[in-house]
């Protein structure tokens, strides 16, 4: 990937639409536009109606064009945006002509990458751009807007400056010839470290909610055959998605429906009922059920008989639900179990609320800042473990100042990588490769 040449890509998806946007970025962006427009002048940041022509002088489209001069543009370079009629052949003609004039088709994420390289945004902001494009709910996108606006960067910058201050005080100890570190200084350094650790631990704990908000959760409906799993899925989805019948073993393939609960995309999976069977197809279905259980964030265990045992699995959160309430006269007093009738649609709200609570969705606030990518979590995690190791030096009776400083440096490195300050190129490539072309 070179930097310094001029790149072009449609930023709207392929297909027919009312408007398509083509974006050009690089030092030749304005020159290319001038060639397309027959030498017209454009003022900065003003949408201008213009007839744009190909190399042979044939009109490609008459449309709006805006020039954003660098460094005040998205990428920090000169950027041109063409708002053409949303016809794939027009878009293609623009892209081809621009490439013929010396532009190059952009790679995925290349516009954002340039923005990063030009220092317009840091790496967590770049990740927010990608997440914003992919986000499935207004809550998720609001949360990423905050990160893009610098909320996470600000927290990290404060962390960084506290760590640097701590480090320089520790390293100062290495260079004063006074023999041992004084008790009061030791105490004060230790307090500062503890304070920083609590920030890091808090940040680390935000990941579960951040991941939930941005990537959603998976809820698997599990139970014996014929207990009403498919009926429940249809009822939750509000549409007739899965086949329901009185014959046990109806569902073989798992069936998925995604619902937004409190802004979080929750994937519900209806599975083949659990029972021993000779039927090879049903057997495969049961195998798949177990596979889904493994990947589930939450399991809804369904029965239709209060005497039957609920599905259990250690290490997974499970909600026990008793179905077919409408068939029973007796009231059963067991608060740990949710009573519903999938058929008559009773108790479904209570179930939904339990799911929301169990997944932690009710704890999400768009006012908070969350870690949302694995990369972010890993960096904060390694920062945190370096700090815990540092803490042990204060707890032991010998204070190895240089090992202490080694760990603080390691924690700082983790933050630097997170912001992209010292990221090796391969990390950059990974971050930007997940984006789409045109971003």
């Amino acid at each position, binding site marked *: 990937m070179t*930097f310094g040449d001029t790149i072009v890509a449609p930023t709207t998806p392929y297909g027919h639409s009312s408007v398509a946007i083509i974006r050009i970025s690089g030092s030749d962006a304005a020159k290319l536009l001038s060639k397309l427009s027959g030498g017209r002048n454009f003022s900065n940041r003003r949408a201008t109606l213009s007839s744009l022509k190909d190399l042979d002088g044939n009109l490609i489209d008459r449309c709006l064009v805006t020039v954003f001069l660098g460094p005040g543009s998205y990428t920090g370079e000169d950027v041109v945006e063409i708002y053409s009629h949303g016809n794939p052949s027009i878009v293609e003609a623009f892209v081809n002509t621009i490439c013929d004039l010396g532009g190059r088709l952009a790679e995925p994420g290349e516009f954002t990458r340039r923005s990063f*390289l030009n220092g317009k945004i840091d790496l967590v902001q770049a990740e927010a751009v990608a997440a914003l494009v992919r986000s499935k709910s207004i809550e998720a996108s609001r949360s990423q807007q905050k990160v893009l606006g610098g909320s996470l960067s600000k927290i990290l910058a404060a962390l960084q400056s506290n760590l640097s201050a701590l480090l320089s005080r520790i390293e100062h100890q*290495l260079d004063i010839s006074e023999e041992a570190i004084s008790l009061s200084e030791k105490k004060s350094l230790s307090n500062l470290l503890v304070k920083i650790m609590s920030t890091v631990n808090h940040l680390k704990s935000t990941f579960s909610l951040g991941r939930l908000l941005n990537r959603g959760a998976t809820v698997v409906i599990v139970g014996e055959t014929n207990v009403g799993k498919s009926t429940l899925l249809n009822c939750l989805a509000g549409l007739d998605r899965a086949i329901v019948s009185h014959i046990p073993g109806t569902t073989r393939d798992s069936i998925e429906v995604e619902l937004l609960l409190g802004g979080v995309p929750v994937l519900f999976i209806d599975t083949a009922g659990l029972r021993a069977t000779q039927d090879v197809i049903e057997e495969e279905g049961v195998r798949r059920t177990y596979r889904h259980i493994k990947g589930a964030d939450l399991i809804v265990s369904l029965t239709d008989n209060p005497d039957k045992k609920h599905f259990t699995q250690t290490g997974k959160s499970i909600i026990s639900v008793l179905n077919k309430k409408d068939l029973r006269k007796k009231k059963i007093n067991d608060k740990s179990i949710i009573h519903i009738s999938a058929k008559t649609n009773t108790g479904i709200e209570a179930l939904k609320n339990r799911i929301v609570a169990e997944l932690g969705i009710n704890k999400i606030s768009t006012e908070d800042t969350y870690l949302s990518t694995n990369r972010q979590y890993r960096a904060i995690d390694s920062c945190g473990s370096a700090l815990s190791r540092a803490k042990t030096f204060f707890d032991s009776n010998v204070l*190895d100042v*240089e090992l202490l400083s080694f760990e603080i440096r390691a924690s700082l490195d983790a933050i630097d990588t997170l912001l992209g300050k010292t990221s*090796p190129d391969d990390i950059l490539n990974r971050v930007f490769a997940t984006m789409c072309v045109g971003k």
Partner: protein
Amino acid sequence: MKRLQNKFDIIVVGAGHAGVEAALIAARLGKKVCLVTLDLFAVGRMSCNPAIGGLAKGQIVREIDVLGGIMGLATDKSGVQFKILNRSKGKSVWSPRAQVDKRLYEKIVYSYIQKEKNIHLFEGEVVDVLIQNNAVGGIVLRGGHRICSLAVIITCGTFLGGLIHVGQKKIRAGRMGENNAEGITEALVSRGFVAGRLKTGTPPRLDKNSINWAKTTPVFGDETPAPFSYQTMLFDPPNIPCHTIKTNVVCKNIIAENLSKSPMFSGDVGGVGPRYCPSIEDKVNRFSHHDEHTLFLEPEWINSNQIYLNGFSTSLPESVQLRALRAVPALESVRFFRPGYAIEYDFFSPSQLKASLETKDISGLFFAGQINGTSGYEEAAAQGLVAGINATQYVRNDSPIILSRDEAYIGVLIDDLITKDTLEPYRMFTSRAEYRILLRFSNAHTRLIKKSEKFSLLDHRGLNKIRKIQCGLNAIVASLDSTVSPIEINETLVRLKETPIKQKTPATTLLRRPSLEIRDLPKSIFSKGAGTSIPPPFVYESYIEAEAIIKYEGYIKRQNKQVRRMKKQENVLIPSLFNYNAITGLSLEAKEKFSRVRPQTLGQAQRISGITPADVSVLSIMLVT
């Protein structure tokens, strides 16, 4: 005096700590060297404190020693007390320091120079450098005489445009009592070099007989002293104490009232001074809440009447210095041999140098020592040594010796000099070395012996002495693989508040416990003659080093991983004529800095002050394609 020859391989200008190392190593490597200096009786002179080594600097002296320099040897022969500093901290930051007999030190250095047949020592003042087609060709002396050579190393210390301040009094000098030098700065600036001013200070020298010694506290060196040089096989130095006293509030107030009379404060001194070795004016001003400061009374030589007052560097008028000191217990009737003073001098911005210390623009011209903006004997000697080796390599048309940041403090020193802006005199600190866990004083031999051998910096005898020490060290480390049984160690473990062991345990495992030291292990595990081949002065530190190797193993591994990551960048070379202005993605500031400094590798580029990671990313992308 020998007749002046007209053609040398290398001319070294200045016989301070940088100059003598440069001349000696080049001569030993077989080059014909002309060493020109202002005063034949000031060769290897210690301008300031009578001490060598100290935090981070002690490691440098060890490195100089493995690389064939003489500073360590001369210190071992002239030291009056030896002490390892930072003992309360981890073993990787322990640093040896010695107080020396200044006169003896000079004498020893002079004798090394005299013994060297390839050195022609010569008194004179160099005023210009001969340059043709961007290559150096020799020097011009005051009076117009020219001497030709293939390479020139400039090591003029504090002498270029040197101006001494004592209160309002100004004296043109390179050191008190020695003339300054003029001409070289102007000559080089006219050829495009960038020069600036820096300043430094020195404390007064006291008359021993005017001090009330009963009111001072003596401080001795170590009982088992460690030498600096691996060549020192027999070591039984004196252990002469220095003495400490404390300043008081009266002294503080006198200084505070007279701050305006200090040229360092009144803005009369142009250069920027060091932050870390502050003058007493600075200390009073910046730490105004401290009423007391510790001062050290150090003899300048054995039985010297002249006492160096460490910690009281000043440029106040002599009368104020006296009044302030006479307020201090023990100094009530103190007399001076010489007042403290400040000196300002020219230096050349070291970003004009390659990592070999050759100037980027004039081939064959090298700068070393205080002229590069550093402060300190050890920093100067280290650069002199590197410049001497590399001038030799230049004459041979061979590639230079470059030490990396993970290999030696000298590597850190030179890399910092050529990449960081010099805003104040540069002094080495432990904290400047990010890979300091690898840079122990006790493993200088392991770190550098290969390079030393590659460049033939030591003769066979010298190398063999070091190898013997290494063998002994390896034997000690190997014996730590043996196991220790509970009865041998549990009593010790209980005493150290560590959990006792239940079964035989490898010594290495025990040693990893934080409060256990190698001396706590039963002697029996070392019984198989481990370490017996080690010369006596190095036995103690070899055990310490063995302990560090085991205790730090995990950290050493992690640090080595960081080093490998850094090396990736270090191996990306930047062409010297690279056109930064043609890269659109670079910020204006980066373009300006890169064009000025012209880094040789991507690693250097990254360390230039003010360069952002984004700039480095852009540059790295341009270099790959």
